[in-house]
């Protein structure tokens, strides 16, 4: 009965549209342009209104005046015009190389180190415009053009054939690839980024890609992907002479792999803001987008991952009083900027589908993992750097301790374990969401 009613209404509606001279784009969206004509982007507030991005932020977070002006539209390419770029770049959400290098105190090192060092980022599927997008990113931020900045190989270590892009939105990794490549070059401009494109996103292909990265000579290998924990160890993420780095995930408290393997440097996420009141010039708190007051993820939950592994035994180097309570591997070792609100610019032509490929507000632990991998490359330690060594170098001299924020809000994972709340709540010293903190220079890497 209901079906009959719906069918009748549908037919009547479509007939009316035809009778009125054709379909109305404002009623039946058929393209981005028609969506815009129906009231703009899906994120638009009603025309003429001003929506604050970070109103009522708690103490310690960025106190900003940033707002979304409904209907305000920036012409494609405006951000790359010198006169207008200054209005956007180097602000939270629009960070670039200079901002990240300053925040992590590696400006001098980034200017002179990294030549000949290979840093790999492992991704799935192809990304045809990877080289031209990286060149555009470097030009945007004043980094010199270079032919050796990027090498692309498949999961077998060959430069051809590369896998085709997967343009189905359900499988599209090109935004991830752009972010990965841009972040490595941002913190280590002289390094060579080795983009390894697995044939697909299944475990076997990605593990082959990690091995290909190692065989290609990459000293640090970033993996911005995750899934549920499966095993206590995995030899593909424990390669002698190679430093494996991974994202803690964006779903709040709950360990994931490959990040929780004891052989992997697991990277959490922060909310990074300039702060002239402190000597460092920057301040960081936990990326805690699960807070329902936050607008970090379109009003929905997302926050840095953290956790106490369910399957990976506690390594000897984690046998500290500061990690009591969690009897298994404490997942996160170190962290870096990840909150999209304080995120970064990325150049990704296929992400824009004809619009400007220069996009701000990219983030997640997909940002923080390649940042840390790039910094490890900048340290020029030849791949001989492990999670154990990072823990041995803990302390204020090498890491910016992140002492505020938590990642257990919302409905995703429930409340933090009462026996060891540090696994989801920041504090002085080690904590789950940010590990030992964010890199302060290269001494801890």
């Amino acid at each position, binding site marked *: 009965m209901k079906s009959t009613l719906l069918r009748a209404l549908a037919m009547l509606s479509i007939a009316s549209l035809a009778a009125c001279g054709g379909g109305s784009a404002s009623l039946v969206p058929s393209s981005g342009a028609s969506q815009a004509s129906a009231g703009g982007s*899906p994120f*638009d507030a009603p025309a003429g209104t001003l929506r604050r991005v970070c109103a009522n932020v708690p103490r310690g977070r960025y106190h900003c005046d940033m707002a979304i002006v409904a209907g305000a539209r920036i012409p494609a390419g405006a951000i790359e015009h010198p006169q207008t770029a200054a209005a956007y770049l180097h602000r939270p959400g629009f960070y670039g190389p200079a901002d990240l290098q300053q925040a992590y105190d590696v400006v001098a090192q980034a200017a002179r180190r990294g030549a000949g060092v290979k840093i790999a980022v492992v991704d799935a599927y192809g990304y045809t415009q990877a080289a031209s997008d990286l060149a555009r990113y470097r030009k945007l931020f004043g980094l010199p053009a270079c032919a050796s900045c990027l090498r692309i190989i498949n999961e077998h270590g060959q430069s051809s054939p590369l896998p085709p892009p997967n343009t189905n939105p359900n499988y599209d990794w090109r935004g991830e690839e752009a972010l990965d490549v841009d972040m490595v070059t941002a913190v280590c401009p002289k390094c060579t980024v080795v983009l390894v494109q697995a044939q697909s996103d299944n475990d076997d292909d990605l593990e082959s890609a990690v091995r290909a990265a190692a065989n290609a000579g990459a000293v640090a290998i970033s993996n*911005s992907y995750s899934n549920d924990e499966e095993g206590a160890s995995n030899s593909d993420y424990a390669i002698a002479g190679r430093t494996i780095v991974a*994202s803690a995930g964006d779903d709040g408290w709950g360990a994931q792999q490959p990040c929780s393997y004891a052989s992997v440097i697991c990277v959490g996420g922060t909310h990074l803001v300039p702060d002239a009141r402190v000597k460092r010039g920057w301040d960081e708190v936990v990326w805690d987008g699960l807070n329902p007051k936050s607008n970090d993820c379109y009003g929905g939950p997302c926050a840095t991952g953290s956790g106490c592994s369910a399957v990976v035994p506690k390594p000897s180097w984690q046998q500290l009083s500061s990690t009591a309570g969690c009897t298994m591997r404490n997942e996160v070792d170190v962290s870096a900027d990840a909150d999209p609100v304080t995120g970064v610019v990325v150049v990704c032509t296929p992400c824009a589908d004809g619009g400007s490929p220069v996009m*701000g507000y990219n983030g997640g632990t*997909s940002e923080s993992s390649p940042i840390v991998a790039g910094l490890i490359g900048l340290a020029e330690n030849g791949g001989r750097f492990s999670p154990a060594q990072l823990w041995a170098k803990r302390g204020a001299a090498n890491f910016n301790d992140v002492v505020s924020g938590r990642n257990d809000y919302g409905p995703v994972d429930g409340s933090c374990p009462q026996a060891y709340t540090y696994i989801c709540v920041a504090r002085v010293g080690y904590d789950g969401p940010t590990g030992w903190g964010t890199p302060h220079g290269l001494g801890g890497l």
Partner: protein
Amino acid sequence: MASAVCRTVVLGLTFALAAAAAAGADAAGSATIVNSGSTNFAGWKIAVTPAGAATLVIARRGVPEAGATPKPFAVSAAVAAQFFKDLAAAKAQGASVEPCMKSASFGSTTHVTWGSWSSPDLSCPPASDTATALSADIDAIRKASGLDTSQLHRGALTAATPAPSST
């Protein structure tokens, strides 16, 4: 004047259709497709009736943004029929998929709910004919909705753009 009348009639019928579709979203016969979105892209939710009446709303983890209004659209009879035929097969036989890794900040999940039945994450590679068929149906329905996924990125500068007034 005639145009205004037409617009009023169409609007009324369309909203009636959307309301009817929405009301039937939980009833047996209707199906809901939810893409979770990710840190960097919003997700979406599409409700479809066997008659082909459908609505689209931008959502994250199935929860629409505050104030978001579902946009009605029509799915062709052939696509709707195939979708519900494939749903019935998947419900009876299962719809297995391969486990897959997700990009930490760009990966999303896609599930179909039909009555009390829910699919596995159809954004992973299908491992059965039923999952393959459902994935193809979802792709066709998403295309019919006119959803422009490039507009789902928070930083797309051709869409509404933050005016960074000060720090």
